């Protein structure tokens, strides 16, 4: 099939999907009705979901809008069994101790068939030394049949067998159907959603078929031209079919220290708007010393309305590429105070969680690290970051853990955020087995302290695994965020959020001038004297694709809310009189100015 015919096919699908999306809330989603006063020409639709399980009467809450923290409790329940979801990442450990066995894959949420129910996509490994990739297992696509999941990757023709590492989901061609980028140890793939329940692989045609060892990738409109660009983290120069060997002092084979292997620089593919991309990392200034990137988050960290890029590097300083707004970025992590820990020492960073835990309107960063290094919390105070890990009680609890995927969300919706961290060591020598580790959950008290609440949040937190990717979504559509956790050589966890929780509001977005899924949209929800700021970030966590959804916990606040939505290209929408306890789909006005801020 030539490019022109593929493009024509895409265009047709795009048109049909746009019509579908415009007519109803996402092809089969609950009928939506306007419930809020809005300024600008945007449309807001409400998707009513079941109320929170424990709440005061509406009269009570209306009468008391103060922000007392309700007595909530975070609780996750494993439902992979009852939901018939079964996926085991085979990391291919055959005794050779390959570097690629250590990272393993990610997972993600995707409503690929636009039926309103989120489906699951999980990476798969296999034998990394096999020359015949066709004999290796494929990534798993699991369709949500509202009560159970069914594996459908064969039917969907999503057939990636290249020892996968990470998933990034987004509608890069704005046709309404989410597409998939898969980072691989071998050549990366780009799966175009055909809109008919199938995918087609177009990485080579699109210009993103990179054969370097890639890890987390992120979709984001970094040049604010309305379509999504792709940032791909690249890791080490390493060929598992001809592996580099490393030895300890006694001459025994050990896992190579990543710092001893050459790094690959990252890639940034700029969407040309015609289904193709051009790699422009160097031209844009997205180059730093060292690299060895494992995760990336694209968000506006300095509130100048331009998306910046934060990169978590293994053993090297992390990068913060500040978007100068003129088509260039400047690596400024050291200057901004988020390259290293508070002592100035680089850490082995793995995953990233982004949110505004201190509610100062600036997005903070939480990075997971190797054992003996604590995970690090960088508080963003507007014109820079400060490592506040120790003084906020987060140093000691993570010292003995090796963290990967992480998310910072308000799971119990009490108005304060929690941190979920997936842990699991890596094997460093053939004679050693890698310690499995329990996941951890921390809760922000609101008073400059976090506390470990793992032991009280469900039996999963007593189970040790080699966990890697973590992705959030409200897959059961009850207004809170659930978790998907990929484990190496063990069944993935599907963790339903059964928390006793406070009032809530969830927002998703449909862009018109901006990208279709609203990646990069920032929303400020004002509840009385409190304002919560969140952004639909590109990337984050580790190797995972979150549902592009903003979930706000409002505690006891059950009065009217006001919402300010800032679209990536500068359009603002204000919604007032919004009541908590609903999911709103905010649609961008078709007549919004197509101008950069």
């Amino acid at each position, binding site marked *: 099939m030539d490019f022109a015919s593929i493009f024509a096919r895409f265009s047709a699908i795009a048109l049909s999907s746009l019509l579908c999306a415009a007519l109803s809330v996402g092809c089969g989603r609950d009928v939506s009705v306007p419930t809020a006063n809005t300024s600008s020409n945007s449309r807001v639709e409400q998707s009513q979901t079941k109320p929170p399980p424990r709440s005061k009467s509406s009269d009570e809450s209306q009468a008391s809008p103060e922000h007392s923290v309700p007595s909530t409790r975070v609780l996750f329940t494993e439902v992979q069994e009852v939901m018939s979801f079964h996926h085991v990442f085979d990391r291919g450990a055959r005794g050779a101790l390959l570097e690629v066995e250590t990272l393993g894959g990610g997972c993600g949420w995707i409503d690929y068939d636009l039926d309103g129910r989120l489906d699951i996509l999980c990476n798969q490994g296999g034998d990394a030394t096999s020359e015949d990739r066709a004999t290796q297992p494929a990534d798993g696509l699991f369709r949500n049949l509202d009560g159970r999941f069914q594996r459908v990757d064969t039917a969907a023709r999503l057939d990636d067998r290249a020892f996968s590492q990470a998933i990034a989901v987004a509608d890069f061609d704005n046709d309404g159907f989410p597409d998939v980028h898969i980072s691989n140890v071998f050549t990366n793939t780009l799966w175009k959603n055909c809109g008919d329940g199938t995918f087609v692989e177009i990485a080579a045609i699109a210009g993103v078929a990179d054969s370097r060892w890639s890890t987390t990738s992120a979709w984001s409109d970094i040049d604010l031209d309305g379509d999504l660009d792709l940032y791909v983290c690249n890791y080490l120069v390493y060929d598992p079919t001809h592996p580099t060997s490393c030895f*300890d002092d006694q001459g025994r084979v*050990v*896992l190579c*220290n*990543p*710092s001893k292997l050459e790094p690959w620089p990252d890639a940034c593919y700029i969407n040309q708007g015609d289904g193709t991309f051009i790699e422009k990392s160097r031209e844009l200034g997205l180059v730093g010393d060292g690299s060895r990137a494992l995760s990336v988050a694209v968000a506006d960290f300095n509130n100048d309305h331009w998306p910046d890029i934060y990169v978590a590097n293994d*053993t090297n300083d992390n990068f913060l590429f500040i978007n100068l707004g003129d088509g260039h970025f400047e690596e400024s992590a*050291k*200057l*901004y*105070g988020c390259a*290293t820990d*508070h*002592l*100035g*020492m*680089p*850490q*082995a960073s793995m995953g990233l969680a982004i949110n505004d835990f201190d509610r100062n309107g600036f997005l903070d960063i939480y990075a997971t690290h*190797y*054992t*003996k*290094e604590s995970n690090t919390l960088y508080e963003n*105070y507007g*014109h*820079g970051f*400060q490592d506040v*890990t*120790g*003084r*906020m*009680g*987060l*140093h*000691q609890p993570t*010292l*003995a*853990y*090796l963290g990967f995927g992480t998310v910072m969300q308000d799971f119990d919706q009490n108005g304060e955020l929690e941190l979920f961290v997936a842990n699991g*060591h890596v094997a*460093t*020598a053939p004679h*050693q087995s890698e*310690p*499995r*580790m*329990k996941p951890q959950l921390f809760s922000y008290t609101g008073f400059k302290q976090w506390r470990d609440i793992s032991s009280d949040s469900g039996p999963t937190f007593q189970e*040790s695994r080699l966990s890697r990717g973590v992705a959030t979504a409200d897959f059961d559509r009850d207004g809170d965020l659930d978790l998907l956790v990929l484990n190496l050589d063990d069944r993935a966890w599907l963790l339903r959020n059964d928390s006793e929780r406070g009032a809530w509001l969830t927002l998703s977005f449909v862009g018109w001038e901006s990208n279709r899924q609203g990646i990069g949209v920032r929303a400020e929800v004002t509840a009385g004297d409190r304002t919560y700021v969140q952004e639909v970030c590109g990337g984050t966590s580790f190797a995972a694709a979150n549902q592009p959804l903003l979930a706000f916990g409002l505690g006891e606040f059950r009065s009217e809310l006001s919402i300010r939505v800032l679209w990536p290209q500068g359009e603002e929408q204000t919604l007032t009189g919004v009541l908590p306890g609903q999911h709103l789909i905010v649609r961008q006005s078709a007549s919004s100015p197509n101008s950069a801020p």
Partner: protein
Amino acid sequence: MKRTSTQQKKPPSRGPIASDSSSSSSAIAQRSPSRRSFWIITSLGSFLILVVGIGLLANRWSVGSQIVELRRSCDQAVRASDWPSVERIARQWAVLEPNSVRPWTMAASASRAMGDLKGCADYLAQLPDAAPVEAFHELSLLQMEALVQPLAARQTCERTLRIYPGDNESSLRLMFIDTMLCQRDKVSGEAKRAIRAGADLRATYAYLFTANWITFSNGAKLNRFWLEKDPQNEVFQIAAVAHEIHDRDSSTPNAETTNADASSFNQHTQLYELLERYPHSIELRMIALSKHLQAGQVAEVGELLDVQSEDFLSDGRYWRFRGWYLAAQEQWPEATAAYQRALEIYPFDFSSQNELAGILRRIQGIEASQDMQAKANLGIELQLTFLGAANFEAVSQADYQRLADYLELCGETDFSNGLRKHLR
């Protein structure tokens, strides 16, 4: 009675006797016994002096002869490789000539040849100050390595430097031992002294720069060994804690010491037991402060800072910890002042620079922090360079050049120029 008669017999002075001799025979008769006594006593005294003198001369001649003989015998024994005789003879020789270098070195050589290294060191320790510096080097090396007596080696180095202030080998050895023993204030003190005394080498500046934080990779093992030999020793006990904490906290990517139950790496009990036992120890207090700071335990840091002594307050690290403590409470001006004080005392403390840059960024904005941050960045880069090197000699000329630049950037022009002399 006797006294009276003596007085009666007391001879007159020589003058009157001479003047009266022709005038009165009775007077002569009266004075003769006194004069005789005088002459007798004088003669006896002179004789005794003569005898003693002759004796002494004879003895000296005899000792000299013995020494000559012993030296000759010793040389003969050496030539015959008869080490027991060499030692025996040299020991006899040393008794006769304790301030001479040679018998001690001969005895030491003999002991060494017989494999008695302790004996060798014992003899070398008897060396007079006039001994050549190489003999002291040999002694300190022996004490440090073969005899596992780092504290004795340390004393030898100190003694050597009192005698030869410009001896760079002893200076380096002293700094090495103190680094191993985590006696950080002593390392920087010696580095500065050596530079002032002209005993500096390139590595002296490396010690100066790394004094507050470097830990050698074999430090823990070596100190454990020393501690086993001398378990009650305060210095070894403190160093053991320092090494243990460092080992557990260090971020070696290939380290495989953790377990799934995440046992806490808390040496709290051991640390505080030692603090109770050695409350005067600045190093111990610094270790505890560092530990609590890492863990973000603000109250504990405050408590440790409350115990103030002159030594403590004159240590730049105290002010760095104080800066952190104040910053944790968002007392920005006070924290700024504390970090500035830390940098006055120890201008190349990149940790203080880094923290201070963070405060400047927070209270004044990014631009205000740029210079301080750039300074900190260079210091941190150099730290990683030095940590990554096998030893100080393995650090490249270019990196020493960067160190000189950094020292200059920190306002330490003398140190910077001093280092540059070694880079030409």
